[in-house]
């Protein structure tokens, strides 16, 4: 997480260590509360990151940046020994030797239908095409598609704004009632899955089925609503 001031100076935010949500380098946000389609989830939720900036660095901020994803070394580190949040097995993506950077598990029914069986539609975002280049290497040495989204939010007023996570914007160009045959239900980050194209586009990531110039839409800055408790900027 980095803040950029009015003069363009970049100030890194040091993330707190707050078990189980943050380990100082990686932070987890959790919006499901084990209700609805998330009955296998957990009641605990987390809508904020916390961290510090050097004393005296406070200024007129114009921009906030962060990465949606896990740093390469941590992503391919040993999941049996990493601290939380990288010990959360719901975020393991072991067959790809890494973690899910984002998971959204949904069920969709046609509008107006009370009887149609809900269809599963999930988003599992993570690095793909990860293979060891050396014979003896245990961990991948490179991923063809890292799929880490660098999020840049401009015109930010940290005292009066919050960051909204807008699932509607992410899904705006996806039809959750349709899944391409012989692909994962929804999008599990496969380069061969056309359902990933619009989602990757809305995350600012390139994808063979996505737009040529992707623009991230999932995160946006909005004025703090006195009744809202849906997030806050790093303090």
């Amino acid at each position, binding site marked *: 997480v980095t803040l950029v001031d009015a003069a363009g100076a970049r100030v890194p935010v040091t993330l707190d260590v707050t078990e189980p949500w943050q380990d100082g380098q990686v932070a987890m946000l959790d919006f499901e509360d084990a209700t609805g389609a998330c009955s296998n*989830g957990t009641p605990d939720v987390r809508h904020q990151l916390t961290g510090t900036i050097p004393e005296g660095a406070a200024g007129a901020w114009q921009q906030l940046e962060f990465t949606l994803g896990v740093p390469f070394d941590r992503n391919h580190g040993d999941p*049996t*020994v990493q601290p939380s949040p990288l010990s*959360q*097995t*719901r975020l393991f993506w*072991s067959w790809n030797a890494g973690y899910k950077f984002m998971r959204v598990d949904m069920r969709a029914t046609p509008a107006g239908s009370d009887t149609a069986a809900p269809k599963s539609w999930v988003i599992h975002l993570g690095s793909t095409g990860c293979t*060891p280049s050396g014979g003896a290497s*245990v961990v991948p040495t490179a991923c*063809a598609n890292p799929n880490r989204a660098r999020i840049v939010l401009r015109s930010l007023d940290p005292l009066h704004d919050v960051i909204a996570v807008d699932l509607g914007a992410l899904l705006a160009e996806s039809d959750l009632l349709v899944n391409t045959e012989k692909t994962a239900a929804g999008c599990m980050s496969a380069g061969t899955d056309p359902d990933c194209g619009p989602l990757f586009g809305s995350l600012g990531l390139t994808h063979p089925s996505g737009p040529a110039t992707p623009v991230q839409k999932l995160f946006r800055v909005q004025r703090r609503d006195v009744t809202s408790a849906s997030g806050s900027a790093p303090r």
Partner: protein
Amino acid sequence: MHARARWFGVAAVCVLAYPVLAAAPQNDWTWALPAGFPEPKVPAGNPMSVAKVELGRHLFYDARLSVTGRFSCASCHKQELAFTDGLARSVGATGELHPRSSMSLANIAYSPALTWANPTQRDLERQATVPMFGEDPIELGLSGRERELFATVSADPQYRALFARAFPGESGVVNLSTITRALGAFQRSLISGNSPYDRYKAGARNAISASAVRGEALFFDEKTECFHCHGGFTFTGTVDHVGKGFPEVEFHNTGLYNIDGKGGYPAPNTGVHEVSEDPDDMGRFKAPTLRNIAVTAPYMHDGSIATLEEVLDHYAAGGRTVKSGPNAGVGADNPYKSEFLKGFTLTAREKSDLIAFLRSLTDSTFLTDRRYANPWPATHAARGNAQPRGTR
């Protein structure tokens, strides 16, 4: 000067602490290896011990290591079938059909690449997190349930003793690291090298039939090319061991499919391609060990060939032709096909000789060795006899 004095202080503590750690009974493992078997490589972080293997055996057979409490590693890896399950495609704890067939665990200690076609799966400890926590497909179904898992294991008095003996330097702690290390140690202990063919090679000339002897010659002949991918003491080209220098990892397209005329395999079983997304990796799978192959039917990554005779027909044809249906295509024309799939002709006698040779690779002592068997009493909850959770 002050900083230097502190350094000496730290060094003294280390010297004092070392004999205490070294007293733990950790180096009591001796490999009882068949003739011609080199010592397996063991990860530095998980040395073998008798206690760790015994703990791993209990975990491997424990049905409480699943979302339903009725399913264990052994559900898909049955000893009497050389740790396969006899199904074309395995079925997970929740009834989900796996895309692929269960692989034998015989001599898995020598395999530097695990599962059918995943070059990222290199050690058993990390690989265990796939069946435990994977969701596509669900195998043991433990994703998000690690706290319940640790609580169940910690509450079992037998496990308290087993973990304390297996991990004395870590106070017998129950966590994902100790669980997966114990599972890895048990699986490495699964050594199979006492087949009639092994006894024949050791000098017992009558251990296998004359037909099997002729089959051996055919197997190692350039006519059939079998040995190129199924060579060495493990009868697979993917192998590593102490003193080898470097591991060998091989994946081959054997012309089983060609659904689009461009070499395509039916999704999701596109082989290494599924992981790498590299078009050249289409249909590349690991050659499984041929040890105990007679008891691990059906064959191929998707169990799509029922018998060894049909497997030989496939290789003799240099690839399989699927005449109709969604997977129709001429596998022999697959552009990614291995150069060793050039086809051959066998007389009826040669075919039965090859089958006799393959059958001579069955190690019946491995299939019945009590050291590898289910250690839990028949009435114990670990057997999975309990009612599923949430029901009465």
